[in-house]
């Protein structure tokens, strides 16, 4: 296979992994102030993602690194062009990251409250902004002939991108709620179950809105053609199935299905994008593609060797950590943290 195509797929896989994994810990973070009525409950909610969130976030850091190495122009145009949005996201990720560590280290209620709301905002903002970013990839942003972004902040916050942002926000929140039904017990689990059921409706509605809007705003449907294949179809079916699965108390399956919905819809966007990586709204000729944005064949081949050796290893030990902490977190259990 062409190395450029392979690396496009790998970057897409890294983003998919990031949305699937960090998606639920964003969701749990968003639900934290509402699911945990007192400090003990909040600690239990955080502990469901405690061992994982940092490793999940590394998927983003790796995606960024892979983008830089394999498609330097994509990285350069995107990160400089989406400047204010990335600033907001960095601020959010900073506050959220330290909050997980800092909140338990001091027991004044105002201290804990401050960090809990930092976790909330620090999770909600990226959950929204990643949807906005993905929508802009495919809709197109003003990119000029020299590959520089030529728009402003408001070009990024167009209604279509906001619709996608709300869809990603709602799906990540749902994903988090379903994760909590999988990882908690007793009353907390019932509360998570009820929340998940409630969240399903807006998630479906916003996703439908986003899909309809995509037809109007982008060329995704034309590109995918009359028979789009199983990936987009399954992502929709998976999301629909979640409610039924929750009603049958099948948390594991429901979580798998919110996961499939997130992974497959991310894949759909990348499929519609290929071979472009960032669409120029000014002139289709100026779009960044896997060809004109990529590194040299030598660099890509080095990266491929490294990825072939280390990605399986990472999956293995990250998988093992999920196995170690497979038990549900009970509110009245002893929390070592």
């Amino acid at each position, binding site marked *: 296979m062409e190395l450029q195509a392979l690396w496009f797929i790998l970057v897409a896989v890294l983003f998919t992994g990031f949305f699937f994994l960090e998606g639920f810990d964003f969701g749990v973070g968003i639900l934290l102030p509402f699911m945990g009525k007192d400090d003990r409950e909040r600690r239990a909610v955080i502990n469901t993602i405690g*061992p994982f969130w940092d490793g999940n976030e590394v998927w983003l850091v*790796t995606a*960024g690194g892979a983008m830089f190495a394999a498609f330097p122009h994509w990285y350069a145009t995107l990160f400089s062009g989406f400047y204010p949005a990335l600033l907001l996201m960095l601020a959010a990720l900073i506050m959220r990251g*330290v909050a997980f560590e800092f909140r338990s280290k*001091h027991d004044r209620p105002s201290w804990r409250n401050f960090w809990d709301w930092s976790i909330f905002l620090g999770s909600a903002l990226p959950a929204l902004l990643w949807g906005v970013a993905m929508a802009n990839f495919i809709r197109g942003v003003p990119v000029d002939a020299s590959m520089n972004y030529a728009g402003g902040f408001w070009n990024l916050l167009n209604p279509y991108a906001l619709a996608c942002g709300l869809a990603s926000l709602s799906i990540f929140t749902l994903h988090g709620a379903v994760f909590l039904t999988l990882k908690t017990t007793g009353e907390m689990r019932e509360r998570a179950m009820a929340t998940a059921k409630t969240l399903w409706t807006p998630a479906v509605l916003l996703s439908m809105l986003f899909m309809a809007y995509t037809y109007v705003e982008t060329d995704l449907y034309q590109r995918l053609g009359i028979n789009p294949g199983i990936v987009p179809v399954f992502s929709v079916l998976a999301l629909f199935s979640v409610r039924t699965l929750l009603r049958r108390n099948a948390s594991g399956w429901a979580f798998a299905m919110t996961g499939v919905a997130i992974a497959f819809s991310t894949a759909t966007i990348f499929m519609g994008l290929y071979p472009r990586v960032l669409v120029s709204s000014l002139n289709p000729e100026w779009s960044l593609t896997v060809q004109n944005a990529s590194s040299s064949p*030598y660099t890509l081949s080095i990266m491929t060797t490294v990825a072939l050796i*280390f990605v399986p290893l990472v999956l293995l*030990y990250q998988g093992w950590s999920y196995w170690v902490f497979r038990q549900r977190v009970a509110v009245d259990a002893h929390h070592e943290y």
Partner: protein
Amino acid sequence: MDIVFLARLQFALTSVFHFFFVPLTLGLSIFTAILETAWVRTGNRKYLQLVQFWGRIFLINFAVGVVTGIVMEFQFGMNWSEYSRFVGDIFGVPLAIEALLAFFMESTFLGIWIFGRDRLPKAVHAASIWLVALGSNLSALWILVANSFMQAPVGFRMAADGSRAEMTDFAALLFNPNVWKQFPHVLAGGIVTAGFLVIALSTWHIMKGSKGREAFVISMKFGTIYAFIGTVLVTLAGHTQMQHIMKTQPMKVAAAEALWETENPASFSLFTIGDEEKLEDLYSIRIPRLLSFLAYNSFEGEVKGIRQLQAEYEAQYGPGDYVPSVITAYWSFRLMVGAGTLMLLVSLLALWKVSRDDYRFPPLLGALFFWSMLLPWIANSTGWILAEMGRQPWIVFGLLKTEQAVTPASVVGPGELVLSIALFTALYLLLAAADLFLIRKYAALGLEGTE
């Protein structure tokens, strides 16, 4: 306002702040792992208590290091897009490998270490903190592979149209001599930073007669040996690194020495006030021959001066100003070496006390041991300031100038830069305050809350 200045200011702010936390992570992860190994092997509960005491401080520090690190990865693209386009083919690779090889390991096993104590056998738990330490220190290696390309580019060719540097030899990049001079220096710097913090807090608790004094005596012993080994290593590594820079970036050495004219044998400046416009001394005290010795391990040998190097660079690269800020390079070098010398003395003093099993500290000595913990931080920061500012006007030595590397003003203007500097300053002040508050609290708490 000038966007190059603003972008540099932001980079200085975010990277210096990030590096307040990194060295302690590097050194304290290994130190905690050593203590936990001692606990597994001996079953002596005091080791476990120390693991928990130092572990808490490690985690508070680690959190800030991680989140400020994300900024580092993003800001190359955000503020330095032309740089990213120019070096992505090379520089992106170690960054991606750093994430894949080091960050995953560090974060996954840290999660296991924090939450896994009741679920895992003791030896597996200890292995997980070793993997955290390995991951952290590997990340330092890979980022230095990236940085070394900026200091001394190897293993590349210029693209036919001159638009970017392309990698031709990955092994050359990895075995860039600069990496293997810089990495031991940074690694040892981490050990020193942790060692002196351990000495400081152990001394404080021993003097205060805190509960668990015996545990802090153990901590003092380990910390002193650790700090001493680290200080010796950091000095030796720094010495060989300087000799290497003599070959690759002589201008950096000349600026660090305020050596305006070529000398043979060259003198070492003890104290200089210079005129950067005229490139000459206003006042200077110098030790004859010492710089030649530092550079070549011999009291003979030519060290090129700033004026000659400027002329050489103009001949090689065309007209321009190739002199970095001499006052910055000169004083950061002096602060780093001065702090290093003091650390050597303090660690020897601590070693002498510990070797005599004498843990009575007169107030002045106690204060010295306590406040010496600031020395590594001074040396770490000034060392990087010298490394980066001494390379100016280049961002990639000999290939790309800093002023050519910044994101075009049409994409990121002064307004956005000022806004982001303000945002990061506010956020980082908040983080610093919260971090200091918590570290002080848990440092003072001692063994309370441990088992």
